[in-house]
């Protein structure tokens, strides 16, 4: 039964990774834009969640407000700074957004201090659920369900709507999409803000499970980047399978080979890249 519990833990991590990596992946696929500060948005989602939960004395207020605030923050960040480095080389994007990680870290430390915060899980999911004789926290099951629900919503949005078709067209061939009269910049901005909002959602959703502290963004940012590389940038399917693989490998790695725990996911990444150098399900992009 340890296996089942670890499987659920792995799925829960995969759900969070999916929320975080899907924005990163599609933004990169659409515009070759690398935002390393994506993890910082995750951290601010958690902190803003803490603040909202305290202000309204409600988990659900935090759950719905924090992602919107992070999306708005992402929009502002894009308008003020990122817009200007959109067409620059990847190295400049990496350096600027890497700098944002440090700024975010210091801002979080100045405003909230060094000590960890947490949000109480909502009353509905406060207890445990009996699974094959084991008690498993209900909130963690909710996280898995949240990941699945967001994935389904994104799938429908991307595959069945006109704006979704525009996003896919932009990922396929940005130049031709523009030649059809699609304002790819605006589509990109929309996707970017949505990705920021999902990073914020991942942050607030993680807050009852993981401690909220300055620097909480780094470990998960690295995992999310590995998800993008393993899954193949630009595709929803890639983010989904990448998250599952990395989430499960990381969780089981820590149980099965505790002494190599840190290396498991890197070994996985290396193995995937040897077989599929562009990741499992890369989008077929023309640039």
């Amino acid at each position: 039964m340890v296996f089942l519990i670890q499987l659920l833990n792995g799925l829960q991590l995969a759900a969070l990774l999916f929320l975080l990596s899907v924005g990163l992946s599609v933004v990169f696929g659409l515009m070759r834009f690398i935002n390393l500060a994506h993890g910082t948005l995750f951290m601010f989602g958690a902190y803003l969640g803490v603040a909202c939960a305290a202000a309204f004395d409600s988990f659900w207020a935090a759950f719905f407000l924090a992602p919107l605030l992070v999306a708005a923050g992402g929009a502002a960040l894009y308008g003020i700074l990122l817009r200007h480095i959109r067409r620059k080389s990847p190295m400049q994007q990496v350096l600027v957004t890497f700098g944002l990680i440090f700024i975010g870290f210091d801002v979080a430390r100045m405003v909230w201090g060094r000590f960890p915060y947490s949000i109480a899980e909502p009353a509905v999911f406060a207890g445990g659920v009996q699974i094959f004789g084991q008690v498993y926290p209900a909130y963690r099951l909710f996280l898995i369900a949240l990941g699945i629900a967001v994935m389904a919503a994104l799938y429908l949005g991307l595959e069945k709507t006109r704006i979704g078709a525009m996003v896919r067209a932009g990922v396929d061939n940005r130049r031709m999409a523009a030649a059809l009269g699609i304002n790819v910049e605006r589509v990109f901005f929309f996707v970017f803000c949505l990705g920021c909002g999902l990073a914020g959602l991942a942050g607030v959703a993680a807050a009852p499970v993981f401690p909220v502290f300055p620097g909480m963004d780094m470990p998960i940012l690295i995992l999310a980047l590995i998800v993008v590389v393993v899954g193949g940038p630009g595709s929803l399917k890639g983010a989904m399978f990448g998250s599952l693989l990395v989430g499960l490998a990381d969780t089981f790695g820590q149980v099965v080979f505790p002494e190599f725990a840190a290396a498991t996911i890197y070994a996985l990444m290396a193995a995937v890249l040897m077989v599929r150098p562009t990741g499992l399900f890369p989008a077929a992009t023309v640039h």
Partner: protein
Amino acid sequence: MLELCGVNTFYGASRILRDVSLRVPPGKLVALLGRNGAGKSTLLKTIVGQAAAQSGRVRFDGEDITSAQPWRIARAGIAYVPEAREIFPSLTVAENLFLARRAGEWSGEKVFALFPPLKARLRHGGGELSGGEQQMLAIARALLQNPRLLLLDEPTEGLAPVVVDEIRRRLAGLKTAGPAILLVEQNHAFAAAIADQIYVLGKGEIRWHGAPAGLRADVVGAWLGVHDVRD
């Protein structure tokens, strides 16, 4: 309708277009002829904003579109069918068609009447089509934008002879019912048969223009080659 005045376009340091001036009147079909590498595709790319004119002006309905963003040029009413067709492989045929649809005379019905094979393929992926079907889809996609000007870059290139004939019949049919067309061709016999006006581009410069009947052997010999290797 479309007017180019003294357009110069460079790729890096090499000058591809030299002082190109050209007009496409409303409702007319203008053919642009020239050998490989003459600069025909670059001329179309300059019009749609994919290549930047170093100097000179591109005007569309009197409006200067020389350095406008490509999506604005498209919205102004210019549709472009590139040489490589550039169908979106992750979109279905239907999505490819209706993604950029704008209201107007051309509807799904009308486009399927022009290119019947597309109707049976609506649910297929854009990447699953044959070369001829891709070309039909690219033209249909452009028509559904309901443009006032259609730019076609070698629509029959690389297709089987029987498909070439079919596409050409459709283009001839389009001429009477459609928008103004600027057609890039290698085959001057076909172009002469359907065009109202012909421009001959050689080494980046307009070498001759006039009515098809005036296209003489010396111009053909100097700038178009004696035989078209593709035909």
